[in-house]
Each structure stands twice: as C-alpha cells, then as structure tokens.
C-alpha cells in the first residue's frame, strides 16, 4: 500500500463512519419496535451501526500499514465547479430563463471543464445542443418547460422589463421630442 492509498483509505473510512453516525443520529428518534414487530427505525439503525463498523475497519486496516512517501494528486477544482455548477445553474434558472437559454449556459460552462475547450467549438456545440434538446423535449416529448422563460420576457412587471425601464429612465428626463 502506498502512502497515497493509505491516506485515501484513512479518509475514506472516516467519511464512512461520519455517514453512519449521521444516519444513526437522524434515525435515533425513529421507533425501533421489537425484533418481533420491527418498527421503522430497526433496519436503518442496524445498518448505521454496521456502516460505522465498516468505516472503523477500513481506517484501522489503513493505519496498520506503514507510512510511506509520496504526494497526492490535486483536485480538479475547475471541472468540479464548472460541471456541478452547470447542473445547479440548470436547477435554479430553468423555470425562469426557459430551456433554450439555460441549455446554452449549461453547455458553454461545462465545455470549459475540458482542456481542449475552444470558443468557436463551444459556442456551436451549445447552439446545437440547445436546438436539438428544445426540439426533442418541448416539441416531441411535450416537457412542460417554456422555450424562453418569464425572466426574459419584456412584458410589464417582469424582472427584465423593470431592469430595462430603470436603465432607460434618464432618457425620459430629457427634452420632449419636438413635433
């Protein structure tokens, strides 16, 4: 076992123990019942205890190994942030922006997680995916999502309209156009 594997297993076991403890804590107010008539808490609590034991075993086995040399690989923060961020962005904005614009955003953002990303290919990829998906899911499969959402609408009272109104406000204070 190398030093990296050792550290990985120590951390892995600790996480497993934490998850087990979490389930045990949240599940502690569930009714255990008896072994005859098991309550909703019986099986989950047994499993949580097993989980903690497994975590202990994993960490324990790793700690028994001698410490070696070696570094760790850096986490790919850019990929993690861009890809998971793209999914979260989709969740927050799909109803407001509508499917087409949100997909443009998702594809453009996630494409930059690759080291081969380039502006031109990403833009055309985003346009292609957005066009294909809106056609497939809205036209063919009838997904109840708007093509473009209320955030982009120019009707009175919508966020974009009021934003634009406030930007255009100075124009109204100017001299009235002569007739």
């Amino acid at each position: 076992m190398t030093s990296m594997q050792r550290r990985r297993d120590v951390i892995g076991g600790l996480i497993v123990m934490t998850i087990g403890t979490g389930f045990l804590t949240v599940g502690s107010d569930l009714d255990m019942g008896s072994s005859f008539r098991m309550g909703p808490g019986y099986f989950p609590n047994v499993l949580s205890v097993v989980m903690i034991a497994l975590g202990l075993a994993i960490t324990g086995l790793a700690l028994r190994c001698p410490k070696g040399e070696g570094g760790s690989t850096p986490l790919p923060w850019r990929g993690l942030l861009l890809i998971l961020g793209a999914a979260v962005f989709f969740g927050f904005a799909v109803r407001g922006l509508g499917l087409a614009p949100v997909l443009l955003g998702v594809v453009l953002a996630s494409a930059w997680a690759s080291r081969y990303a380039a502006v031109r290919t990403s833009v055309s990829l985003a346009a292609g995916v957005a066009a294909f998906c809106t056609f497939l899911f809205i036209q063919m499969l009838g997904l109840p999502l708007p093509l473009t959402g209320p955030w982009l609408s120019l009707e009175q009272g919508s966020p974009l309209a009021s934003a634009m109104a406030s930007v255009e406000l100075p124009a109204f204070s100017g001299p009235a156009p002569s007739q």
Partner: protein
Amino acid sequence: MELLGDLGLGFATALSPFNLLYCFIGVALGTAVGVLPGLGPIATIAMLLPITFGLPPVSSLIMLAGIYYGAQYGGSTTAILINLPGESSSVVTAIDGYQMAKKGRAGPALATAALGSFFAGTVATVLLAIAAPPLAEVALEFGPAEYFSLMVLGLVASVALASGSLLKAFTMIVMGLLLGLVGSDVETGTQRFTFDMPEMADGLNFVALSMGVFGLGEILRNLEHEHTRSVMVKHVSGLMLSKADLKRIIGPVLRGTSLGSVLGILPGGGAMLASFAAYSMEKRLSPNRAEFGKGAIEGVAAPESANNAGAQTSFIPMLTLGIPSNPVMALMIGAMIIQGITPGPNVVTDEPELFWGMIASMWVGNLLLVLLNLPLIGLWIRMLTIPYHLLFPAIIAFCCIGAFSVNNSTFDVFMMALFGLVGYALIKLDFEPAPLLLGFVLGPMLEENLRRAMLLSRGDATVFVTQPLSLGLLLVSLGLLTAVLLPNIRSKREEAFSE
C-alpha cells in the same frame, strides 16, 4: 410445446413495427455508446429512463435491453480498432484484437467478434426461454424468509465477484441500502431521513441518483485523463472469414458461450467477468496458445462470445426473481417499477407479453446488430474519433433535462448534482460505486421481507436457518464469502482482475 406458443407470442410482440423500431433504436444507441469515448451503458440507460416513461412498458424495456447488449458489440469495435476497450467487458478483446488489426486483419477480427456474439446471443436467448419460467415457478413458492436470504446471497455474490476491496464493496452495499430506505416507511408511513422535505417523501429519486453517480461522476473522472484518439485503420476490408479462420473459432465460440452463459446468471457476474474467464480459459486450452497476445483469432472469439452470452443470461435473475445481478439490471428493475410493474416471479405469468417479447427481442436485436455492425462499420469508425470534449457537455445537458423531467422538479436536478459529487468522491477514494446501486434497489425489498419474516416467525430469528431453502441460500453465501477470503483464491482473484 408450450414453449413454442410462448415464443410465438414473444416474436409477435417483438416484431410488431413499433417494438421493432424501439429495438432498433436501442441496439443502434448501444453500439454508439460502446463506440463513443467515456460513455457507458449505465449512464446511457439512466439518461434515457425519463424518456421511456411515455412508452408502453414492453417497448421501453426492449429498447433499454438493446442498449446493454448492443454496447457489447460496439465496445469490441473500439477494442479491436484502437486498442481502447469501449466497455469494461471488452478489455481482453483488445489484447489480441488490436494485434490482429495491426497485421491488417481488422476485418476478420470484427467479423469474428460479431458472429461469435450473434451465436452466443442466440444460445443465451434459448437458454433464457427454457430456464426462466421454471425458475420463476420455484420462486413463486418463496416466503419472506427465503426471499430475504436470496437477496443476501445476491448481494454477497455481487461483492465476492466484483473487483477491488471486499470491505469497501460491503460498505457501498450498506450505504446503498440506507439510501434506499429514505422516504416514507411502507408499513407505518413514518418519514425517514426526509428532513421534512416533501420532495423526499417518495424516497430519493432513482434516476437522479444513478445519473449523478454514474453520469456526472464518470465525466469528472474522465476529464482527469482526457486524451484524443486516433484510428490507425481507416478502411476495413475482408469482413468474410476464411475456412481456416472459421475452423479455428468454432471451439472458442462454443466454450466462450457456455462459460459466459453460466457466469452471466451469477449475481455480480454479467458480461465483464465472463469475458475475462473465457479468455484465460482459452489461453490454457487452445492448441495455438503460443499466438495469444500476438493476434490469435481465438483471443477475440472466446471473450466476445462470452460477454454477449453473459450480458443476456444476466437477465434471468432479473426477470424471474426480481433481483438485479449488476447495475444495468438494477436500472432495468427501476424502469419496471416506474412503469408500474412489480418485478419478481409474477412477471412471467402476469406479463407474458412483456416477458416473452423481451426474450424474443433479444434475438431480433442480435440479428440487427450483426447487420448494423458489419456492413456499416465505416460509420462507427467515424464515430470513434468524436472527441470527448464535444460529447460530455451534451451529456450534462441531457442529464439535467432527464433528472428534471421525472417529476418536473428542480429538486431532483440538485439531487443529481449532489450525487455527482458523491460519485466522484467515491471514485477518488477507490470505492467501486456499482454495489451502491444494487443496494439502493434492494434496500426496501430487503427490509420488507425481513420484517415480514420476523412477524411470521413471532420474532424468532432462527427462521432463516430452520427453513431448508433459506438455510441453503445462506450457506451458499457463507461459502462464497469464505472462498473469497481464503488466501490462495484471494490472490488468484486479484490476479484475474489486474490482468
């Protein structure tokens, strides 16, 4: 004779234009998935699950099954032509297949893979038709204690036959079981681990979980070692096999098919294990063993027949017992549940059209695959070189829409993102995520049968060892577990997976 009548019903179902179309879509997508970089059948089936909701159950399952065994064909094309296995099950095919391609024999290698797979698929389909109904009949007699023990056996076997650390595989199962229990308790209606969120009352969304762990998690992993592919063989010619070649592959195909059929039935087995085992067996038995590793046609024929046979027979426990033997089967069970079908031995009698239609469609699908793969090989070669950086953003877009569309809820999209993080963490910490999905699907069933068995025995836990069938199943689990833990088998097992 009843079998012929049943198969007749099956073919009538599978050959209806509508189902034939979905069978075709399934196998074509499967081949594409096998050929395209970084996209596997698990992620694809998870992505397509939401789309199948609107389809009749038979058509949707025919299509999803086609993706799984179609991927076996596509995976071998990648293995032979660019020495990169498209699927884990074609890892060994790459050894001799690529050597053959280097010697200008890509055509015969591809033909061997396709024809061997077709033969294996035919045999496995017949086996499935013969073996499944009696097995389901036996399973109908099972009480809760037997069912509980059977599921324990399934889970233990899937751990024993999987690669990597046993301890970690068990951890993944327990975590899957726990995640499967989230939601309302079936018997009392108590909310468990839902944090009073109404979105969690029906449990964690199966689609969001599998797309997160196997879709997003996989992408994050792939991006760490991104590279471009180049195809050496641009044009493949000579797809016909010579008489000498045919003579050499008959034995390996037959042996690969029988070994694959048996290993496919075992939980945790399926296509990957079958191809590994068939290759190492052939390496020992073949009169041309000196050629192995240098382009022996047997080294393509045996594992390719075995992985297709295994892919197909792994449907047996899923269809007859409602127990998944690998993550793809877990997804199929999820698809059934979503379609309102209760998986288990009742499927054979209650849904004959679905059951026999699926079996017949596998043979039809295999035939389509041969037609699709050999004459159209040029198309797949072009697809081979689609760079991953043009592919994964589209996959992410599909996953987002898919997760949303199950319940039209953005909550599930956030769930998917969370499980994407979990999936990536699991990979980084060297936990194989496949058993998690098995546990997740089996969790509620396992608990229900445990509670029922204990209720029937008035709280006497010995019921599991006093019922002969249940005892037998538990003994087999115990035997498997000790076998894997024995030192010399253990080292053999590690050797087999590191090859």
